[in-house]
């Protein structure tokens, strides 16, 4: 089947209905394994048991940024090819990405209090992550308040592309500025600095959260396609009523 066939909404729905049960099962299994490994992971020699917060915080941070990356690619599809499924993908990623960014900020804050002695500092990493959450809320506001969905989609796509500038700022903020947040320790040149006893559950939890993101994204896309069908049918119904009177 040519790749372009997946972009047909009806065919896309058929594929989603087939794939979703498998994705849900894989997500549940990975979370069961990941949480078991996280609970039984040893304490860190400096952080103690608070290192267990890392198993939530790191995947949430990655998915907050991944969600915006996905929206930026979808924005190109909306603005350049004007494909409706691209807009559906972008719109579906926004609430999920916002939720993971919120989890990242909250868990980071709860980790910061016992480790740094404060819930929040206005350093570059934390502030750029907060900006990401505000950008997500901005995109959601554009989608929810636009009277004409097409106009809202284009405005959200432009904001998605402009906001993508924030992604390298988040990633390299710990290198460019002197921050309280520690530098990259998982994916870095020269390999991870984390002990395998902590790295393995972290990677399993990251994979589990990524599968959860994909599952939710496909499910929200399916809902959005159905919502657009409802809107289209209601418009047809209104048109028929207007012609009959």
């Amino acid at each position, binding site marked *: 089947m040519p790749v372009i066939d997946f972009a047909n909404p009806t065919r896309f729905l058929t594929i989603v209905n087939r794939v979703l049960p498998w994705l849900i099962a894989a997500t549940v299994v990975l979370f069961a394994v990941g949480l078991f490994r996280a609970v039984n992971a040893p304490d860190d020699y400096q952080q103690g048991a*608070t290192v267990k917060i890392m198993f939530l915080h790191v995947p949430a941070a990655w998915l907050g940024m991944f969600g915006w990356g996905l929206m930026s690619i979808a924005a190109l599809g909306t603005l350049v090819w004007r494909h409706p499924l691209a807009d559906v993908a972008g719109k579906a990623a926004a*609430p999920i990405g916002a*939720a993971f960014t919120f989890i990242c900020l909250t*868990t980071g804050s*709860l980790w910061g209090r016992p480790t740094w002695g404060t819930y929040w500092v206005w350093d570059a990493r934390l502030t750029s992550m907060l900006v990401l959450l505000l950008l997500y809320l901005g995109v959601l506001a554009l989608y929810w308040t636009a009277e004409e969905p097409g106009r809202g989609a284009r405005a959200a796509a432009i904001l998605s592309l402009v906001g993508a500038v924030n992604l390298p700022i988040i990633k390299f903020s710990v290198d460019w500025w002197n921050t309280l947040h520690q530098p990259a320790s998982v994916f870095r040149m020269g390999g991870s600095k984390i002990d395998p006893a902590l790295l393995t559950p972290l990677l399993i939890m990251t994979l589990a959260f990524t599968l959860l993101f994909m599952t*939710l994204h496909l499910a929200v896309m399916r809902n959005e396609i159905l919502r657009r*069908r*409802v809107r289209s049918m209601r418009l*047809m119904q209104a048109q028929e009523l207007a012609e009959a009177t």
Partner: protein
Amino acid sequence: MNLGPHADFIVAAYAVTVFVVAALVAWVVLDYWAQRRILGDLEERGVTRRSQRKG
């Protein structure tokens, strides 16, 4: 399992995450049921999309 002197922070982090993820899942499931129900109602009343109509 001993979570040490900062157990409250660890439990709170997991609780927030579970709450947010559960809220997301509930929203997705409820929205799916709602859209299916509305589509079913419209189809019962004979409303079809333009693409479903025969030339």
